[in-house]
């Protein structure tokens, strides 16, 4: 798998696919790109055309988005120990002396 083949969709590929029945694999890839704010304009257009009008995929998108939002808001629970910064600073400035 190379970077160039997966990094972004070829423009022609999006346009060609948009004319035909949507490829489920492409839908899934684009769904993730939109979710992670990595989609190009062409990919956004593809998403609007095929994914938003397809109940199963739109449901997947919304579940993924809900989970992403939950992770963002619920998984920062660890309080940094109060003495950590002082400990780091003292070690660094000790080294510098």
């Amino acid at each position, binding site marked *: 798998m190379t970077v160039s083949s997966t*990094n972004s969709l070829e423009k022609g590929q999006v346009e060609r696919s948009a004319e035909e029945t949507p490829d489920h694999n492409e839908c899934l890839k684009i769904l993730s790109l939109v979710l992670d704010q990595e989609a190009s304009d062409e990919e956004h257009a593809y998403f609007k055309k095929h994914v938003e009008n397809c109940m199963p995929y739109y449901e997947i998108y919304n579940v993924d988005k809900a989970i992403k939002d939950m992770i963002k808001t619920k998984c920062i629970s660890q309080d940094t120990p109060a003495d950590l910064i002082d400990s780091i600073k003292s070690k660094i400035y000790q080294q510098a002396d």
Partner: protein
Amino acid sequence: MSDTNRQSYSQREKEKTFEKEFLPHIDSMYNFAYRLTFDEDDAKDLVQDTYLKAFRFIESFEKGTNAKAWLFRILKNSFINDFRKKSKQPAKVDYQEVETFYNSEDVDKSITTDLRIETVQDMIGDEISNALNSLDVDFRTVIILCDLEGFKYDEMAKILDIPIGTVRSRLHRARNLLKERLNDYAQKMGYKN
């Protein structure tokens, strides 16, 4: 990093860069370290090691670039080189399986969990956190970097030393695994799907 990219810092500049660009990320760093090690003392040691290394190699840091990504990369490498060895945990992920995932016919089979948006929103957070913690470390890491810390795919590729295509396929697989765990939990708790 080649010598041509090295910056020349005075001691005062080093300390200023350290305090202004590196220390503000300490909460994210500690949270990441804790979710890798699941131990407060190990997480503290890991973050401390990371910051000491960052200071030692500060001349390799290019001013104006993404300090947070640079620090996360050092922390991830320290974890792999020092902590994973110590904990004697074998690497459990079969990357061949992960990396060929997109090209397989199985891709459609694994997307159809019955998890519904209402079910996810009813969960109180511990379920999400526990499900995330239950994933193998490489899958857990991509979700933390992307969803929790908001890194872009190209930044994640640099932090993890993997191609962007691999970032995407690993993230896709990680999300499916996470959904499977949440779905199992929802069924156990009797949430209606």
